[in-house]
């Protein structure tokens, strides 16, 4: 029996691939990266561990909701993203842990630029992932986006997937 060991580099490549898929607006493929019980959360600013019952989140998506989010953004009637904005998702300071476990965890800093109608907005913060092995590759069990901003000004919205 061969036990394959997952390397940190494989996880890093998986995250970079996610970022590339988002920047190329292949959003249906992005939803597929998630497990059937996958979740996508953006807790309120300054409250990364907030309870979604007690606090107003920006996004608290189940697997079906994150798919709706992705599919909506591809429609022409998702006016805020039509025509599509141009984005750059940069992930860095990536730390991978629990490589030996069923659930691998990863965190990274992100800098995401969005430009549309000659206005650029920059989102900064940290992503927290739970990742599992699937079909010789990986799948996201949870993704939590912790924005390191004082307010959503001047951005005004989180219309793209972070």
């Amino acid at each position, binding site marked *: 029996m061969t036990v394959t060991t997952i390397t940190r580099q494989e996880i890093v490549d998986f995250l970079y691939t996610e970022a590339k898929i988002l920047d190329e607006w292949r959003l249906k493929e992005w939803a597929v990266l998630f497990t059937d019980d996958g979740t996508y959360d953006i807790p309120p600013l300054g409250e990364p561990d907030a309870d*979604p019952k*007690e606090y*107003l989140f*920006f996004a608290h998506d189940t697997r079906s909701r994150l798919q709706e989010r992705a599919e*909506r953004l591809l429609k022409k*009637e998702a*006016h805020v993203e039509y025509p599509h904005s141009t984005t750059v998702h940069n992930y860095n300071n990536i730390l991978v842990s629990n490589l030996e476990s069923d659930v691998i965890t990863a965190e990274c800093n992100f800098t995401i630029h969005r430009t549309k109608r000659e*206005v650029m907005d920059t989102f900064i913060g940290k992503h927290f992932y739970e990742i599992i092995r699937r079909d010789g590759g990986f799948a996201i069990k949870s993704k939590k986006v912790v924005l390191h901003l004082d307010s959503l000004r001047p951005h*005004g*919205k989180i219309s793209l997937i972070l």
Partner: protein
Amino acid sequence: MDNIIQDNVEDSEFLVNRKVFTEREILARERAEIFNKCWLFIGHETEIPELGDYKRKKVGGRNLLFIRSHDGEIRALFNTCPHRGALVARESEGNSRVFRCFYHAWSFKNDGELVGMPGMDGFPEGFNDEGTKNMKAVKRVENYRGFVFVNYDQEAVSLEEYLGNAKEYIDLVADQSEHGLEALGGVQEYSVRANWKLLAENSVDLYHGMPTHKTYFDIKQDQDPDLKKVKLEGEGVELDNGHAVIEYVAPWGRPVAQWTPIWDEDLKRDMEQMKEDLTERFGTERAERITHYNRNILIFPNLVINDIMAVTARTFYPTSPGYMEVLGYSLAPKGEKGSHRMARNDNFLEFLGPGGFATPDDNEALELCQEAYNNNEEVEWNDISKGMVRGAGNAMATDEVQMRNFWRQYNMKIQESLKKEVVQK
């Protein structure tokens, strides 16, 4: 500037001069006649439930401390040191008996009273006998059913008089729970690169619902095919002092209390119980209205209370003609059951807020309006006529009577100002 509005009832035409969205002079006049004189929402009383709880708030351009002082009174202190002016409280929220300005270490009780400073021998005895060295408080702070307002005009009429018959609609929201409403944590602070009055209009505009939010309705219809059968039937109503409301049959699930098949059977029973309780308290007709009808309420000039798929309050201020800062709240019955609260929050997030499936499209619509007002020199007027042709008292919820009421009040205030010199900041 030419006329602000053209209000032509005979021809069923109502126009708004687009310069009100772009001119700095107009903003200066709005500050003088509207934001310095109208009642402005500062927050919900449940944001500061305990003695000493405070939150920093920007209201009408001022930096305020919204605080529950140790005598139990809710105050709005100007967050500036009476000594040399520095911001006293620097954390955005917390709980404190005393605030100390770090610059020269003057200290204040949480009702604003000066209680100490270093080097007191350098000041005369009775230095603060008149209280002029205390942190100054906004003199007019009033509360209607948990909604706390300030007014910078000491001569202003009372809040209740100002709200007038809009109270009836605030009551319909506040009556959802015997225990009152509470504001959830995580108040959303965002912005729109557009004039603040565009959001006042948009928040009570049902006409834009389908074209702007088609993607949202697509998702809801997938979840609940029966949704298609419900039309947005209802009425638009002009209220006192420029306030206005639209009230209409809710096509979607309402946490209080209209069940939809996306929710489970437990919630169904929960909501039926809720409706029974409301019927007991208020009778069938009012209970029906509370549970099955949406209402978008605009309190002039800049408070919106929308009781729709969840309850949101939002308030917004201009920092320039083309930019506003928005605060978005979620309000819910105190003590709501966990599963019920979660259904509410999901409903909220699906439509509302900067990460919702609808609000960002509103934001985009407003920004496109603002951008295209570059053409104001040649293309001068907005049309707000929808429904005038139906005659007074017959406005549908998808008409624009509620916006006309806002604009008539706005016009009155600015016309008043045009008689005076206003210094532009």
